[in-house]
């Protein structure tokens, strides 16, 4: 599987997001590429797993990325506490509804509980991820900041391994 740096490089090329979104995702891929390459800051960063729960054979994650280097233990502990206090129903719902790059995190109020755990001023993005199988994860996430808006896209390992 490509590393975070290799993925960031691939997403700067026009075909990167096209490969990821696949057939029918052309418009979205174009927007994502444009955003990723013209953003004030963007990249692909390894993601922390703050909490993961299993329900009916599916996995529900709350993940975090830090755009300013590794997180300290105290911050991780606070974020983990907050993530563990999110009801399973919220994780499931917001995992489905969360807006992902090229839509901004603020654009989808239905995922506001989990996105609300983010500390955007400190470069910490917190986001949900649902995986409809017993195995799977997203070790990395693509992110961007543009005009005061924040964007995040969890990169599922299975999709990345298959498409890149």
């Amino acid at each position, binding site marked *: 599987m490509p590393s975070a740096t290799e993925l960031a490089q691939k997403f700067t090329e026009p075909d990167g997001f096209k490969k990821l979104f696949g057939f029918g995702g052309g418009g979205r891929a174009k927007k994502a590429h444009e955003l990723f390459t013209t953003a004030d800051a963007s990249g692909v*960063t*390894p*993601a*922390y*797993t703050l*909490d*993961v*729960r299993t*329900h009916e054979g599916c996995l529900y994650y709350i993940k975090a*990325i830090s755009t300013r*280097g*590794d*997180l*300290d*233990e*105290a911050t*991780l*502990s606070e974020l983990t*506490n907050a*993530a*563990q*206090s*999110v*009801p*399973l*129903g919220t994780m499931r719902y917001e995992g489905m509804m969360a807006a992902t790059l090229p839509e901004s995190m603020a654009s989808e109020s239905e995922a506001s509980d989990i996105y609300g755990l983010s500390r955007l001023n400190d470069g910490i993005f917190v986001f949900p991820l649902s995986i409809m199988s017993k195995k799977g994860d997203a*070790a990395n996430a693509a992110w961007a900041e543009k005009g005061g808006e924040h964007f995040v896209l969890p990169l599922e390992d299975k999709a990345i391994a298959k498409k890149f």
Partner: protein
Amino acid sequence: MAGLIGVVAIFVLNGTWPKIDHNIGLILVVFSVVSFGSAIFSVIIARGHLRTTTRLRQAAAEHGFRFIRNLDGPGFQGLLFREGTRVRATDLVDARASSTPFLAGSVTGQYANDSSTPRVVAASFTMIPLPNSVPNIVLIANGIGTLRQAGLSLAGRQKLSLEGDFDRHFTLYSPEGYERDALYIFAPDLMQLLIDTTAGCDVEFVDNAMYVYSAPGRYRDGAAIKNLVRVAERVQDKLRRQTTRYSDERSVGFTDTGSSAAGALTVAAPDIAAAPRTVSPEDHAAGAGKVGADGQRLRTKTTVLQKLVTAATTLLLTVAVIYTVINYLPTLLNR
């Protein structure tokens, strides 16, 4: 109740009482009384619960703690949270951001789902964060405690006997290979403190938290919360001293501090002046600086009784099906 309403409706429409058999009338009356009684009982319970919620909300606000009314399927790591289904935490007083961090409330869930006797259990719980991750150690109170009621059983080979009269109060379980670690953490003064403060409760150490499980309804008002703050302060002080320097050299990314003993347990030297330690996502995922994989979770098992009940139920059902098929199928086919 519906029957009674029907009878009254017939009287209003026809002007005469319907003719009801004496027995049916009696059944109607009994059902009506039971339904009415249940409704009254539910209202009383709901009012009592509402009063408790209000009192706890006020107590939490007085102390500057957060109050959470309902939390369906929380991600806490204690046995009652990770082993059950339909787990719900209610009336949570969240003091994790305070100088005496704890989280207390009620929990209900369905347990022993893989046995023939799944059960719904309610309990009170307190979670006290620890400064460090420790192996999963469980103290089961002697008698029928919350974890036993929930049908949660731990593999016998993990049982560990401690000195003094500790065994009279608790049965201690620690993961195989982590006996020395358990003895390091459970120094005699911590054992005495736990006997004094949590007697009759089940206690669990998991990751970087201690959970205390007790009978439901332990935290009902401000006085209980005040008492909890006092106990948490006392316990935390001791726990901090006992666990701050704990580290497990079997964990991923363990760095030797130079004080390693011959065995697995290492006491890390405290580094007061050090900057906050950062953790990379990879190390975090691998559980670096925590506890080795074998020590993170105790092995749970189905009890012998549960196995017997499951086997007996399966046998009875099979016999019943065979009996029905043999005796009634020919009659049905001949019709």
